[in-house]
Every structure is written in structure tokens, then in C-alpha cells.
């Protein structure tokens, strides 16, 4: 097998804060093959967005990044600015969380689409316009030609996210990073956007990283899932294997925190009690131990490393993995 499209090797991100250095991403290793989908799951502040920004090289100026991000044979961390710029938007695209803020309010939709196309592909204005119309139609925007002259505020949230996706797809990227692409949208729109992403991914054979706090989002859509907690990957497995048997108590808790449609009315939602540890004061033991109902003394004393489970490709970081007799459905 050839080298993976994306290899994140030992990536750590530190942000200086007045209260000391904040370790947002704590030595993460991940890889992704061309055409595959990786889901990165975790609650707010677990470092999943910082990790995606590290891949895109869009970290805040003061952030310190170590490790390597190998993309298509080049290390993005050490790539010079000009080559990085040519790569972004063309081979490496992103869809941000909030379509209300990720499109420029003073530029028309046509400008925002065409500028990417004209920057990276050698197309003249009429060709770029034709391609923009095609893209808008592909992401399910009615009357795409009229939309080009409109501004973002004239479109609904779901519409704007479709436009953001059209921008991301405009140069046929090899990798699309979707950072919580549905979090800011109405529930009724969420599935449509996720299906759109999945469909376009298959059609264009691009690799995709879906970042989400919702295990349900990745369940049917990702080939592999990485669960992050406090800046580290704590469990990583092919999606089916993960849902068949979770090893980390945190993953289990995340799944339990999704409201069930078939639950009786007024069933309390089993939220994860407590909050993630202060990232400026790393714990000696397992970061999840203070909130974990299985935690024992050892969990507070030492940090569990990622180790392989019996199932191939399944990694987890826990001293007391959950013993589950039967798999739970997603």
C-alpha cells in the first residue's frame, strides 16, 4: 500500500496564555488514506479544532506547533509560505463551523467562489463563472446563476453552508476538512449537509476529516473514528469496530450523551459530569480519571498510552477498558 495522503505525526500545539502555556493538542498521531473519511470526535475544548488548524497551518500566530503534518509527500509545518498558499484551497480545503461568519459579508457569492477558482486553476472569468454555477448546482442551490450576484446575508444558514462547501470543492481538493460543519445549523438541515458532503466525497474521491462533538454524525459516514480528550487521542478504531465495542469510558459517555429518539419522555440525559481538566495544568494521570466512573488509583497516578486492542486497527488509552458483552448499535 502506498503512503497515506495525510500523516499527522507527534503533533503538539501549545498556546501561551497569561496563566501559563496551554497544551491544546498533546502529541497526536493520525493518518488518513486518499478517498477515506476520518471522524474526529470530542467535546468542546478537547483540541479537535486546534488539530485541524494545525493541519491547515492556520494556528494563531503565538501558537507553538511541533511534530510533522505530512500531506501528499510534503511536510506542511516546514513548507514555505508561497507553496503552502498554492496548496491551500487547491489540494487542501476546509469548511468551517459557522456559515454565518465564514463568508465575507461584503463580497458577492460569485466573487468568493470565482476568486478561489481563478487563483488555483487557469480559467478565465467566463469559465470560472460557468464552473461556479456548476458547483452551486452540485451542492443543491436552486437558481445558481442568480445567486452569484447575491451577498451571503441574502441566503439562509443552510444555504450558506452549501455555498461554503461549493467553495471548498471548487478546485477538486484531495482532502476536505469539515470542522463541525453542521453544529451551527438547524437539525433539519444537518442531515442534508452531511449527506451532501458524503455524496460529493464519494463522487470526487477525496479524503475527508469530519470534526464533530456528536458520535452520531460520524457513525454511518466515517471509515475511522478518533476520539479526542484533553488534546490527546484516547481511542481510535474503524467505525464499525468502535461502535461494536468501545474501550474508553469517555467514548461510551459521549455516546450516552446523545439524546435518543426512542427514549421515554422526560428521561434524564446522561450528561458527562464535571468539566475537562484545565489545559494549562496537565494532570499526572489519565485526563479523564476525575470524571470517570471506572477510575481506580492507578488512573490518577500514570497516563495510559495508546495500545492495541484485539481487533486490528483499534487503539485505546485506558487501564480499565470497558468490558462489554454485546455491541451497542449506533
Amino acid at each position, binding site marked *: 500500500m502506498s503512503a497515506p495522503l495525510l500523516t499527522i505525526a507527534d503533533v503538539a500545539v501549545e498556546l501561551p496564555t497569561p496563566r501559563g502555556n496551554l497544551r491544546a493538542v498533546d502529541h497526536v498521531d493520525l493518518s488518513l488514506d486518499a478517498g477515506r473519511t476520518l471522524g474526529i470526535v470530542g467535546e468542546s475544548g478537547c483540541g479537535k479544532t486546534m488539530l485541524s488548524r494545525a493541519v*491547515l497551518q*492556520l494556528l494563531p500566530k503565538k501558537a507553538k506547533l511541533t511534530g510533522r503534518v505530512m500531506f501528499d509527500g510534503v511536510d506542511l509545518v516546514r513548507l514555505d509560505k508561497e507553496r503552502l*498558499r*498554492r*496548496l*491551500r*484551497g*487547491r489540494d*487542501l*480545503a*476546509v469548511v*468551517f463551523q*459557522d456559515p454565518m*461568519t*465564514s*463568508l*465575507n*459579508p*461584503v*463580497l458577492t457569492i460569485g466573487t468568493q467562489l470565482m*476568486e*478561489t477558482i481563478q*487563483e*488555483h486553476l487557469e480559467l478565465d472569468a467566463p469559465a470560472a463563472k460557468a464552473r461556479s454555477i456548476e458547483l452551486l448546482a452540485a451542492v443543491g442551490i436552486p437558481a445558481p446563476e442568480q445567486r452569484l450576484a447575491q*451577498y451571503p*446575508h*441574502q441566503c439562509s444558514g443552510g444555504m450558506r453552508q452549501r455555498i*461554503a462547501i461549493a*467553495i471548498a470543492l471548487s478546485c477538486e481538493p484531495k482532502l476536505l476538512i469539515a470542522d463541525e460543519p453542521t453544529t451551527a445549523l438547524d437539525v433539519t438541515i444537518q442531515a442534508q449537509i452531511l449527506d451532501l458532503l458524503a455524496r460529493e466525497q464519494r463522487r470526487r474521491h477525496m479524503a475527508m476529516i469530519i470534526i464533530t462533538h456528536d458520535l452520531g454524525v460520524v457513525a454511518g459516514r466515517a471509515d475511522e473514528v478518533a476520539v479526542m480528550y484533553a488534546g490527546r487521542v484516547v481511542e481510535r478504531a474503524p467505525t464499525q469496530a468502535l461502535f461494536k465495542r468501545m474501550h474508553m469510558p469517555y467514548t461510551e459517555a459521549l455516546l450516552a450523551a446523545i439524546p435518543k429518539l426512542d427514549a421515554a419522555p422526560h428521561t434524564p440525559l446522561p450528561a458527562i459530569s464535571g468539566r475537562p481538566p484545565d489545559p494549562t495544568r496537565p494532570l499526572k494521570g489519565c485526563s479523564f480519571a476525575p470524571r470517570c466512573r471506572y477510575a481506580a488509583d492507578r488512573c490518577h497516578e500514570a497516563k495510559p498510552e495508546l495500545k492495541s486492542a484485539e481487533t486490528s486497527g483499534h487503539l485505546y488509552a485506558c487501564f480499565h477498558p470497558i468490558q462489554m458483552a454485546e455491541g451497542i448499535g449506533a
Partner: protein
Amino acid sequence: MLNFVVRRLLAILPVLLAVSLLTFLIASLLPGDLAYVILGDQATPENVAALRRDMGLDQPLWWRYLSWLGHVLQGDLGRSFRTGQTVLQAVAERIPVSLELMLMAEFIGLLIGVPVAIACAARAGGAFDRFMTGSAFAMLSMPSFLMAILLIYLFAVELHWLPATGYVPFTEAPLNNLRFFVLPALTLALAEWPGIMRVLRSDMIATLQEDYIALAKAKGLKPSRILFVHALKPSSLTLVTVTGINIGRLLGGTLIVETIFALPGIGRLLVGAIYTRDLVILQGVVLLVACGFVIVNFIVDLLYAVLDPRIRHGHT
């Protein structure tokens, strides 16, 4: 868009009315009777009473306001009792000077302020940014008369590059006319650019934190396109406001700079009117300048709509 223009126009009517009332009150409520001013200290009470009747000064205030407003609406702002010149004539004579000074000053101010602001915001906190922010602060705290004297000393006295004072109309000697304007315009511009630079710089820094700038970077756009197309336009609303206020302020002439450089502009007309208690001129000039100010701000409002489509479409 037309709807927007009409709405804004209707909104400035009451403002103009209030401006006229205030201008009238300022001139009318100043201590001292106009009739005494005109007739001098040798006037007899009978003469004064006769003149007051002639000028309508014996009428109640509200009546005087309405009749003055009626004349103003017909384009008659009154006539100086000293020179016999009408207000419109006096202003028409002086306004090209003040207008030219204002345009040049604002142009130079923007020419310095905008590029410096963009360069500072692009590397906020860097050496250039810190140096320019410091310099701007120093310039801002320097009074214009001091700046004027320093510039005259350097460029007129020491280097002999430019004339210190004086004026020729543009139509007579265009190049010479411009030479006379360089120093006064520069004096004003050196006080204008720090404000321009500071508002644009801070708005740019805020804009550069926006998600859409991160997306523009992620799209692989050139840094110049990100700065000038994606960041400058949404950051320039405050800049347009400040420029509008500056223009409005300079429209009324600049008392100090016009006096130092002996430019016969609106500022000097006003100073003269105040010294000679020429209330008709004073009242008329203040009214015209205030209306100019309101109109400039109306144009600023229209510019907002050009810059931000959300205002144009009534979403704010």
C-alpha cells in the same frame, strides 16, 4: 437603494431645521443689540428704535425666526451691514479656498494614514506597528499652530522650497496656487492621519480575526488580496465616518491654519465676522457650514450602503 436614499433624505430634513433654529438662536441671543452695533455709541434712542423697527428687531423671537427662515428658503441669507456684500457672495468668494485646503489636507491625510494603517494591522504588535502607533500619538498631541510654525521654519525659512504665506487663485496661476497650499494642507494632514490610521488599524485588526479571513487564507488567496479585498472594505466603515467628520469640520475652514498662512477662506471670514460683530454674516456662514456638514454626513451614510450590502438591503 433608491428607497434607502429617500429614507435618508427624509431623515435629514428635521436635522436641517434644527440646525437653522440653533444658528438663529446663537446669533439672536448673543448679548448686545444689533442696532447699537450698527449705529455705534453715538446713537440716540430714537435712532435705535427706528432701526430696530426697520430690521424687525422689535418683533417677537419666533416671528423673527420664521421670517428669516422664509428668506433663507428663498435663497436670501441677508447682507452684511458693513460691506454690503450678501452672505452668499461672501461665502462664494471664500469657499474655493477652504474647499481646496480641505481636499488637499484630507487627501494627504488618507495618503499617509491608510497605507500605514494596513501595514500596521498586517503585522500588529511588530516593530513597525509599535513605531508608527507611537509616532501617531506624538503627532496627535501636537497643536496645529506649532506644527505650522515648524513646517514654515523648515520648508520656507531654511530650505526656501515653499512660500510661507499668501494666496493666488487657481485660475490665475495653478502651480503657484498649489505651492501656497502645500504647507497649510500638510499642517492639517499631519494632524489628520493619526486619527485615520488609528481607527482603520484597529478595525483592520478586528477584521483580520474574523472567520472569513481564516477562510480566505485557507482558500490560498494572495496576502495582498486578503488585505485589500477581504479585509479593507469591511474595515472601512469607521474610516469613512471619520473622514466625513473631518471633511465637514474642514469645510467650515480652519480658523488657525487659515490665519497663520493668510489664506482667505471661510475660517477667516468667520473670524472677521466675529471681530466686527457682523451677525448677519456670522449667522449665514454658520448655517451654510452646518448644512454642508449635514450633507457630507448624508453622503457618508450613502457610502456605508455602498461598502456594506447588508445596510443597502435593510438588514442591520
